[in-house]
C-alpha cells in the first residue's frame, strides 16, 4: 500500500501551510492558558505536546509525499507569486521538517518534569508559548519558498529563542548576559541576511526563490550586486549556524538556557540555518559560478576545518559540562561545512547525513545532561563522579551518544564520519582525512574525560554514606533512550538516513531550481 494514501487529501494538500500555521495559533492559545495545574493536568504542556505531535504527523506526510510524488510548491492562500508567498518543499527540506518535529516531540515529552524544575511556575504558559513560536519559526524558515519570508521566520524563531534562553535565569543568572549576547549577534546575522536579500531584490525584482534563481541564471554571475548579496547572506547565515569564528554566541546560549531548550536548540536551530545556506548557495546562486564555488571550497571547508580543530581543543579544556558539548557542537558544524564545502554529491551527502546524525546524538547528550541537573544539580565536569552508579540508565544513554560523537563503529557518528572520509578521499583531499582523524582523537579526549569521571570514580559522599542511586524519571528516560537507540539503529543500518541524505544531495547537484508549477491553497 502506498503510505501516502493513508493521509486524507486535505492533509496532503495543505500540510505545508498547516505545519507553520498550527503552532503559531496554538502559541497564542497556550499563552492564554492557566499557569497552574488544573485537575493535576499541566494545560500548557498538554497543548504544546498535542501541537508538536500533530506537526510531526504532518511533517511525515509531507516527507512521504515529496519522496513519492516530487516537490510541493504551495501558493499560500491561492495567491500565486509574485503577489503571494509560496511554500516550497522538496527532498532537501522535507527530512529537516521531520527532524525538527520529531526532536520537538521528544523534547516536549522530556519538558514536563524538566521545565517544572527550571522555570518559575508563573512563567510556565508564556514559556511554552514562546517555545511554540520558536518551533513555528524554525518550520517556517525551512518550508518557505520566499526569500523575505525566510527573514521573517528567522526573526520569529530567533526572538522567541532569546526569550527562552533568558528564562534560564531562574537557574543561573548568567543566562541573561548569554541571552543578551545571543540577541546582539543574532540580530546582526538577521540584518546581514535581510541586507543580502534586499540586494537580491534590487537585482531581480522578485522575492520568490524560484523566480530569483531563474532571473539570476538569465543575467549571469557578473553583477557586483549579486556578489554583494551573496557575501551578506553567507555571513548572516554563517552567524546563525555557528560557523567558526562567528560561533561566539553559542556556548553561552547552550550553557545557560533551560535544559530542554538547549537540547532542542542544539538538535534543530543550527540545522535549519544550515539548510538555508544549502538552499541559497546551491539552488538560488549557482555553485558552478566561480565566486560561489570558490567560497564553498575555501570559506566553508576552510572555516569548517578551523572550527573542527579549535573548537575541539576548547571543548577539552572546559569545566562546564554543557560548554564542553557546546564547543563540540561548533566542531561538529565544522564537519558538516567540510562536507558541503567539497560541493560534490558524496560530500554534500556526508555533510547532510552528519547533520541528521548530529541532531540525534547531541540531542541525546543534552537531554542526559539535563537529567543530571534535574537529579543532582550537576553542571560541572568534576561533579560527574560516580554517575555510572547513581544514574546508570541515564549515564548509559549518555555513553552511547558520546561514543557516537567520537565515531565508534556501530553508531551514527561512525557512519557519517566514514562517509565524510570517503568523500574527501574521492576528492583527493587527503589532508581532510587527517584532520577528521585528529579531531576524532580530540573527541576521544573530551568525551573520554566525562565517561571516565562517571565510571571510574566513586560517587561523592553525602551525610556519611555514598550518594544513593537516583535515576531520572521515566518520562525523561524515554526520549533520551529513543535517541540513544536510534544512534545505534541508524549506526548499524544506515540505509534509510543515507538514502535521505543522498536524495537531498541529488536535489542540490541538479543546480538552481528555476521552474516549478504551483499547487494553489486556500480555496
Amino acid at each position: 500500500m502506498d503510505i501516502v494514501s493513508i493521509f486524507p487529501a486535505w492533509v496532503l494538500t495543505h500540510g505545508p501551510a498547516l505545519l507553520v500555521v498550527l503552532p503559531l495559533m496554538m502559541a497564542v492559545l497556550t499563552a492564554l492558558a492557566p499557569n497552574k495545574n488544573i485537575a493535576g493536568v499541566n494545560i500548557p504542556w498538554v497543548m504544546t505536546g498535542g501541537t508538536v505531535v500533530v506537526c510531526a504527523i504532518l511533517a511525515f506526510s509531507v516527507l512521504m509525499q515529496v519522496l513519492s510524488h516530487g516537490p510541493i510548491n504551495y501558493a499560500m492562500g491561492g495567491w500565486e507569486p509574485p503577489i503571494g508567498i509560496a511554500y516550497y518543499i522538496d527532498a532537501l527540506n522535507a527530512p529537516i521538517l521531520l527532524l525538527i518535529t520529531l526532536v520537538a516531540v521528544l523534547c516536549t515529552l522530556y519538558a514536563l518534569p524538566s521545565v517544572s524544575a527550571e522555570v518559575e511556575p508563573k512563567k510556565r504558559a508564556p514559556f511554552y508559548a514562546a517555545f511554540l513560536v520558536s518551533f513555528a519559526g524554525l518550520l517556517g524558515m525551512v518550508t518557505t519558498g520566499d526569500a523575505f519570508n525566510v527573514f521573517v521566520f528567522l526573526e520569529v524563531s530567533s526572538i522567541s529563542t532569546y526569550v527562552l534562553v533568558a528564562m534560564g535565569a531562574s537557574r543561573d543568572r548568567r543566562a541573561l548576559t548569554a541571552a543578551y549576547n545571543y540577541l546582539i549577534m543574532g540580530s546582526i546575522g538577521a540584518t546581514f541576511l535581510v541586507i543580502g536579500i534586499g540586494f537580491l531584490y534590487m537585482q531581480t525584482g522578485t522575492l520568490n526563490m524560484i523566480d530569483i534563481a531563474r532571473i539570476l541564471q538569465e543575467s549571469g554571475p557578473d553583477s557586483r550586486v549579486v556578489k554583494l548579496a551573496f557575501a551578506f547572506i553567507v555571513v548572516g547565515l554563517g552567524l546563525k549556524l555557528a560557523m567558526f569564528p562567528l560561533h561566539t554566541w553559542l556556548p553561552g546560549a547552550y550553557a545557560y538556557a533551560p535544559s530542554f531548550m538547549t537540547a532542542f536548540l542544539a538538535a534543530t536551530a543550527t540545522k535549519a540555518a544550515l539548510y538555508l545556506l544549502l538552499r541559497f548557495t546551491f539552488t538560488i546562486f549557482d555553485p558552478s559560478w566561480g565566486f560561489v564555488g570558490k567560497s564553498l571550497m575555501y570559506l566553508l571547508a576552510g572555516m569548517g576545518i578551523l572550527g573542527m580543530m579549535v573548537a575541539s581543543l576548547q571543548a577539552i579544556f572546559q569545566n562546564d559540562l554543557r560548554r564542553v558539548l557546546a564547543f563540540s557542537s561548533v566542531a561538529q558544524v565544522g564537519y558538516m561545512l567540510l562536507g558541503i564545502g567539497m560541493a560534490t554529491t558524496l560530500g554534500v551527502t556526508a555533510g547532510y547525513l552528519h547533520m541528521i546524525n548530529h541532531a540525534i546524538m547531541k540531542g541525546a547528550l543534552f537531554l542526559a545532561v539535563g537529567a543530571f541537573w534535574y537529579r543532582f544539580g550537576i553542571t560541572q565536569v568534576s561533579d560527574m563522579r560516580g554517575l555510572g552508579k547513581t544514574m546508570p540508565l541515564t549515564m548509559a544513554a549518555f555513553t552511547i551518544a558520546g561514543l557516537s560523537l567520537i565515531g565508534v563503529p556501530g553508531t551514527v557518528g561512525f557512519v557519517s564520519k566514514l562517509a565524510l572520509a570517503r568523500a574527501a578521499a574521492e576528492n583527493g583531499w587527503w589532508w581532510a582525512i587527517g584532520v577528521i582523524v585528529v579531531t576524532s582523537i580530540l573527541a576521544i579526549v573530551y568525551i573520554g574525560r566525562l565517561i571516565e569521571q562517571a565510571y571510574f570514580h566513586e560517587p561523592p559522599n553525602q551525610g556519611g554514606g555514598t550518594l544513593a542511586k537516583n535515576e531520572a524519571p521515566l518520562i525523561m528516560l524515554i526520549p533520551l533512550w529513543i535517541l540513544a537507540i536510534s544512534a545505534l539503529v541508524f549506526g548499524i543500518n544506515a540505509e534509510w538516513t543515507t538514502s535521505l541524505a543522498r536524495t537531498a544531495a541529488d536535489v542540490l547537484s541538479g543546480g538552481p531550481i528555476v521552474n516549478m508549477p504551483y499547487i494553489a491553497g486556500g480555496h
Partner: protein
Amino acid sequence: MIDFLTSFSPAFVLIVAGIIAALTPVYQGRKVLMVGVPALVLVLINTMYLKGGDHGVLGALGGYFSVAGIELTTIRIDRLSIIWGNIFAFAGILNGIFGLHEKCKITDSSALIYTGAGIGAVFAGDLITLFMFWELLALSSVIIVWRGGKDSYPAGMRYLAMHILSGVLLLAGAVIYGRATGSYAFDHIGIDAPGGKLILLAFGIKAGFPLLHNWIQDSYPKSSVTGTVILSVFTTKLAIYALARGFAGTEILIYIGGVMTVFPVFFAVLENDLRKVLSYSLNNQLGFMVAGIGIGSSLALNGVAAHVVVDILFKGLLFMSMGAVLHRVGTVKASELGGLFRTMPLTTLFCLIGAGSISAFPMMGGFISKSMIIAAVFEEHHYVVFGMLLFASAGVLEHSGIKVPYFAFFSHDSGKRPKEAPWNMLVAMGIAAFLCLYLAFPWGGAFMGYKGLYAMLPYAMEGEAAFHPYTADHVVFQMQLLMGAMFAFTLLKRFGLYPPERRAQILDFDWTYRRLGLSILKWIDAMWTRLGAQTKYLLKLLFGRVGKRLYQVFSPAGTLSQDAPSGIAAVFTAGMLAAILLGVYYF
C-alpha cells in the same frame, strides 16, 4: 535456532552477551554468561565451518551487510581463521572460569565484548570489518586495563593512544588500498601494495614490533589479576593472524621477528616484577611467530598457527599462576616472593608445566610448535635468524622457564604462607596445563596428542609435508640447548646472579664470552634506561609546555574561550564580511 545464530558473525553473540552482562545485577548470572557464551560461540563457529562445504576448505563466507555503501563480509571462516576462532573462544571459556570469583560488572561485560571483538576481527572478510572490530578491541580492552588500580589509568591512556593510532593507520591504509585495488577484501596484501606499509605498521603496533612494543610491558603488568590473563590472549594474537593473512612471506618480517625474539630476553632477565617478565617473554614468543610469517612456507605458517594455539595456553597458564600469586599474596615482585611451593603446591605444579611448555621441553606444548618454526627458518637458509631464535629459546628458558617459577615458588623463603589459589583458578589452570601436556603427547592414533593439533593446521601435513617433532635429532638438540641454559642459570645463581663473581670467568671460554656479552648488554641496557629517562624528561618538558600553552589559550579563562563581548564578535562578523567580499570580487 542454530540457523539463526549462524547467520551473522558469532562476535555479535558475545557482544550482546557483554551488554546483557553489563545490565545483569546478579553476579552469578554474569558468570554463567562468561563461561556459557564463549562455549556456545565455540559450537557456532564449528557448525558454520562444517556447513561451509568440503569441510570448510573453501571456507564459509557470510554475514554480509553494507555500511555507507561498502559491502561488508563479517564471516569468513576458513582453515586459517578457524584455528584462531577456536582457540580464542576456548580462551574465553578459560578466562570465564578463572574469573569466577570476581564480582566486577565492568570487567565481566568488557571481557565478553573484548572476546567478541577478537573473534569478530579474526573472522572479518574485509578490511573495514577488521577495522571496526580492531577499534572495538582497543576500546573494550582499555577498560580492562583501567580496572587494574591506581597506576593503570595513565598506562591505559598510553595503551589507548597506541591502539587508536594503530586503528587509524589501518583505516587509512585500507582506504588507500581499497581505492587503488577496488576491493576492500582482506586477503594477501603484501608490503608493496598501495597502503600496504600503513597496514603493516598498524598490525605491527598490535603485534609489538621492536620499538612499537612498549605498550605491552607498560599496561599488562598493571592490569587486574584476571585482566592480564585475558589481555595476553587476544590483542597480540589477533595481530599475528592479521599478519599471517595479509603479509605471509614478507621477507622483512623474518628479521623483525628475529630481533623481537632476542631483545626482550635481556630486559626480562633484569626485571623484578614477574608479570612484567612474562610480558617480555610474550613479546619474545610473538617474535617466533612473526619470523615464521616472514618465511611464509606452509611449514612455517603451520608452525605459526600451532604456536599461537600453544602459546595462548601456556602463556595464559603462566599469567594465571602469577595472577593466583598476586591474588593471594598481593605482589608479584621477585624480591618479595619465594618459598610459596609449601602452601601453593598445585599452583606451583601448574606454573612449572607452563614454564616447561614455554621453554619447549620435549613432551610439553612449546616443543611441537616452536620446532616447526625453527625448522622452517633453517630450511630457508636464514642462518643468522636461526641463530637468533636458538639464542632466544635459551633465553626464554632463563627468564620464563626458570626465573618465574624459581623466584615465586622456591628461592629463599620469604616466610609468606598464603592459601592455595581458589578452586576456580585451579580448575582453569588445570585445564590449560592438561592441554599443554596433551597437545605434545607423542603416542596414540592419528588424532591423539600433537597429531590432532597438526591435523587442524591450515596446510595439509601428510606425505612429504609431514613434520615429525619427536625425532632423535630434534629431541637431543633441544635437550642440549635447554641443559646448557639451565647449567648457565645454576652457575650464575651459584656465584651470585648478576654480575657473576670473578671465579665464573675462568671456568670456560664460553662463559667468558657470555659474560662479556652480558656486560656489554647490561651497559647498553643501563644507557638505554638513561636515554629513555632523558627522552622521557625532555618529552615531558615539551608536552608539559605545549599542554600549558594549550591550556592558557583554550581553558575557560583562556584567551580563546572567554565569552567574547558582543562588540568583538560584531567586529569578527564585519571582518568576515570584508574577507568574503574581497574574495568574491577579486578571485
